[in-house]
C-alpha cells in the first residue's frame, strides 16, 4: 500500500515538475541602459560591455539556471542607448518596464543616470539592480525596490580618505584641507561624507576651501590658483573621470605641486587616466585601490585574471578600457545569476529577498557582497592608496590606509 502511494506521489511530482518547466519562459529578459556617447560614456560602456560578456558566456552554456523553473533559460539583454541624457534615460527606463516588460531591471552606470531609474522602479514596484549609482538619496527605509551591486555607497566610500587625514594626517603635518567636488549625486554625497567624517573625528583639521563646480567643468586653472592661495596641506578632488583628467592636466600645466592630492578615478579607471594624464602626472596621487589590485578570494564567478583574459579576448580593439567599471558590470551580472539561482519566483519582492540573502555570503572578484538594510553596498570597500612609478616607469598602487591592508608608507609631502 505504502509502495503504491509512494509511486503515485512520485508520478504526481514528476508531472508537476514537467508542468512547472513547461510554464518557463523561453528567455529571461534583462532590461538596461547604456551611454554610448556623452559625458558618462567612459563609465557606462565598460559596465555594459561586461554584462554583454557575461550574457554571451551564459547563453553559450544554454542560459542561466533559474530556480523558479528549475532549468537553464537563455538571457535576452534588452538594452537602449540613453546618450548620457537623463531625460532620455527616464523615457527608456519607462519603456523597459511598461513596453518591453523586462523580468529584471538594471540601471545604467553612475549616480546621474541611475537617478531616473530609482523613481521609476519604485513607482512600478520593480526591483532595481543598481550597478554603480552610489548616491545617498537612492537608499531609504521606505524604498525596498533597490540594491547597490558593485560600489560602496557614497556615504561610506570616502571613509578611508577621511580617516587617513584625521588619524595619520596631523602626524604628517596635515592641518588644512581643500575640498573640491562636482555638484552631482555621486561626488556631492562623497563631499558631504568627507566633511562629516572630518568634523566628527574631532581632529585638528580645518577645511580651508570647500567649493562645488558643475559636473561639466573642463577647465580648472583658475580654481587651482584659488586653492593654492589657501595653502592647503591636502587637496581632495571628487569628480567623474573627465573631471579628473582635466583637473590633473591643469595641475601639471600650471606647475602646481600640492603636498597631497586625492582624486577618485586614477584608481578606478587607471588605464584611461594614464592614457590622458600620463604616468608622471599620476605619480604620488592618492586614490582608491580598486579590486584589480587586491585579488579577493572568490566563491562565485571568474577570478580577476580570468575575467581580464576573457575581456581582452572579447574586446580586442581596446576601444573600451578595462577598469573598475568593467569589474562592476561583471559583479552585477554575477549577483543577477546567483539571485536567479536562489529566487523561487520572478516576483520582484522575491528577487529582492534573494539578493539580500546573498549579503555577506557572495564573494566575487569585487570583494564580499554585503548590503545594509536599505540596499546600500557596504562590503566592496576600496582602501586608500597612492600611485607610484615602478622601475619601468609604469604606474603601481601602494595601499596606504587602513593600516591592516597597507603595502607601503605614504609619500608626503609630494616631492
Amino acid at each position, binding site marked *: 500500500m505504502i509502495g503504491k502511494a509512494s509511486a503515485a506521489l512520485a508520478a504526481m511530482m514528476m508531472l508537476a515538475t514537467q508542468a512547472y518547466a513547461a510554464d518557463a519562459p523561453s528567455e529571461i529578459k534583462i532590461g538596461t541602459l547604456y551611454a554610448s556617447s556623452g559625458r558618462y560614456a567612459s563609465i557606462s560602456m565598460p559596465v555594459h560591455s561586461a554584462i554583454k560578456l557575461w550574457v554571451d558566456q551564459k547563453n553559450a552554456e544554454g542560459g542561466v539556471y533559474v530556480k523558479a523553473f528549475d532549468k537553464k533559460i537563455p538571457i535576452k539583454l534588452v538594452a537602449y542607448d540613453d546618450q548620457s541624457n537623463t531625460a532620455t534615460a527616464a523615457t527608456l527606463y519607462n519603456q523597459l518596464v511598461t513596453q518591453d516588460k523586462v523580468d529584471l531591471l538594471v540601471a545604467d552606470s553612475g549616480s546621474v543616470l541611475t537617478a531616473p531609474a530609482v523613481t521609476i522602479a519604485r513607482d512600478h514596484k520593480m526591483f532595481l539592480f543598481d550597478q554603480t549609482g552610489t548616491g545617498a538619496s537612492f537608499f531609504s527605509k521606505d524604498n525596498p525596490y533597490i540594491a547597490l551591486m558593485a560600489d560602496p555607497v557614497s556615504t561610506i566610500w570616502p571613509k578611508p580618505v577621511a580617516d587617513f587625514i584625521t588619524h595619520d594626517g596631523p602626524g604628517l603635518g596635515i592641518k588644512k584641507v581643500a575640498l573640491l567636488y562636482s555638484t552631482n549625486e555621486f561626488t556631492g554625497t562623497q563631499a558631504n561624507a568627507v566633511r562629516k567624517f572630518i568634523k566628527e573625528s574631532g581632529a585638528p583639521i580645518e577645511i580651508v576651501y570647500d567649493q562645488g563646480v558643475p559636473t561639466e567643468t573642463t577647465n580648472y586653472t583658475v580654481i587651482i590658483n584659488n586653492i593654492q592661495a589657501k595653502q592647503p596641506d591636502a587637496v581632495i578632488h571628487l569628480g567623474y573621470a573627465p573631471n579628473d583628467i582635466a583637473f590633473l592636466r591643469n595641475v601639471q600645466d600650471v*606647475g602646481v605641486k600640492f603636498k597631497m592630492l586625492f582624486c577618485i578615478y586614477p584608481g578606478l579607471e587607471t588605464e584611461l587616466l594614464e592614457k590622458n594624464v600620463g604616468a608622471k602626472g599620476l605619480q604620488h596621487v592618492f586614490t582608491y585601490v580598486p579590486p584589480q589590485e587586491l585579488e579577493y578570494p572568490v566563491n562565485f564567478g571568474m577570478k580577476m585574471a580570468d575575467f581580464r583574459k576573457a575581456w581582452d579576448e572579447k574586446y580586442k580593439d581596446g576601444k*573600451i578600457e578595462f577598469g573598475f567599471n568593467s569589474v562592476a558590470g561583471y559583479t552585477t551580472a554575477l549577483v543577477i545569476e546567483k539571485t536567479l539561482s536562489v529566487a523561487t519566483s520572478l516576483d520582484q519582492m522575491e528577487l529582492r529577498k534573494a539578493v539580500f540573502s546573498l549579503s555577506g555570503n557572495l564573494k566575487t572578484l569585487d570583494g564580499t557582497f554585503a548590503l545594509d538594510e536599505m540596499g546600500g553596498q557596504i562590503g566592496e570597500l576600496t582602501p586608500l592608496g597612492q600611485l607610484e612609478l615602478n622601475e619601468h616607469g609604469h604606474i603601481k598602487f601602494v595601499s596606504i590606509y587602513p593600516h591592516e591592508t597597507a603595502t607601503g608608507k605614504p609619500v608626503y609631502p609630494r616631492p
Partner: protein
Amino acid sequence: MLYPLIAGVLFGLYFSLVGIGLNLVFGVMRIVNLAHGDFLMLGAFVAFGVYTAAGLDPLVGVPIAFALFCVAGLLLYWILVPRLQRARDPEMLSFILFFGFSQVIEALTTIVFGTSERSIPSRELANSLSGVRAAIFGGEATNGPFQIFGLSFPASWVVAATVSVIAIGCVYLYLYRTRLGTLTRAVMSRREEAIATGINVDRVSAAAFGIGLGLAAVAGVFAPFMFGSFTPAFGIDATVTSFVVVVLGSLGNPLGTALGGVVYGVSYMLVQTYLSSWADLLPYVLLIAILLLRPSGLLGRRVRVA
C-alpha cells in the same frame, strides 16, 4: 583678481577662434551651422592623429586641419547649401539639417574611434618653439608653465591664444584687404543687392563656408589642451558656447566675435572664482542678458549697417 582676468583673456581669445567660423558662415549665408562643434571635434582628432600617428608637434595640425576642412567645406557647400537656400525658410531649415548632420558626424566618429576620452600631453604643443620662447623670454627651453606678471599659466593656453589672434587677424585681412573679402562683406551687408550687382554669391558663400569650417577645425586642434580631453560627443557643448560668443559679439560680424570671446572668457573665470557652482549657467545668462539689453550684440549696430 588679476589671475582670473588674465586667464579669462587667454581663454576668451581661444573662444573667439571657436566662434569666428560659425559667425562667418552665418554672416554670409544666414544659416546656422549646428554641426560647427563637430567640425571642431574632428579638428581635435586631426591634432591627435598628427601627434600619435606621425609623432609630430600638434601645432603642425593647424595648417593640415585648415586645408583639409576648407576643402571639405567647399564640397559640402555645393552639396548642401544651394538646395537649402532655395527653401522658403533657409534659416529654420538649416537648424534641422545641420543638427542631423551633427548627429551623423558624432555617430560615425564614435563607431570609428570609440567613446573614451583622448588627449595629448600639454608639453607637446609647440614643443618645437620652446627654444624660440627661451631666447625671447629667457629660462629653459622646456614647455613648462608660462609666467605673466609673475603668475603661472599653461603654455598651451598662450599658444592657443596667440594662434587665435593670428587667425582673427587673417580673417580681418581677408575681409578688408582682399577682393573676395570685399565681396564677402557686400554679401553679408545686403545679400539681395549683392546678387543684383552681379556678385557671384555662391562663390563667395562657398569660400566663407570653407574658411568657416577650416577655422572650426583649427580651434579643434587646441581643444585637447583647453578642455583636458575630448570625445566624439564633445561637439554639442562647443556649438552652444560658440553660439553664445557669436551672439554676444554680434551675429554676422566676425570681428565682434573676438570681443564676444574675451567677454565670455573673463566672465567665465570670474564666475569660477566667486560662484563656481554657477559657472555652467553663464553661457545662458549671457545669452539672455545680451538679447534683452542689446539684441544686435556688442558690436552689432556699427558694423552691420556700415
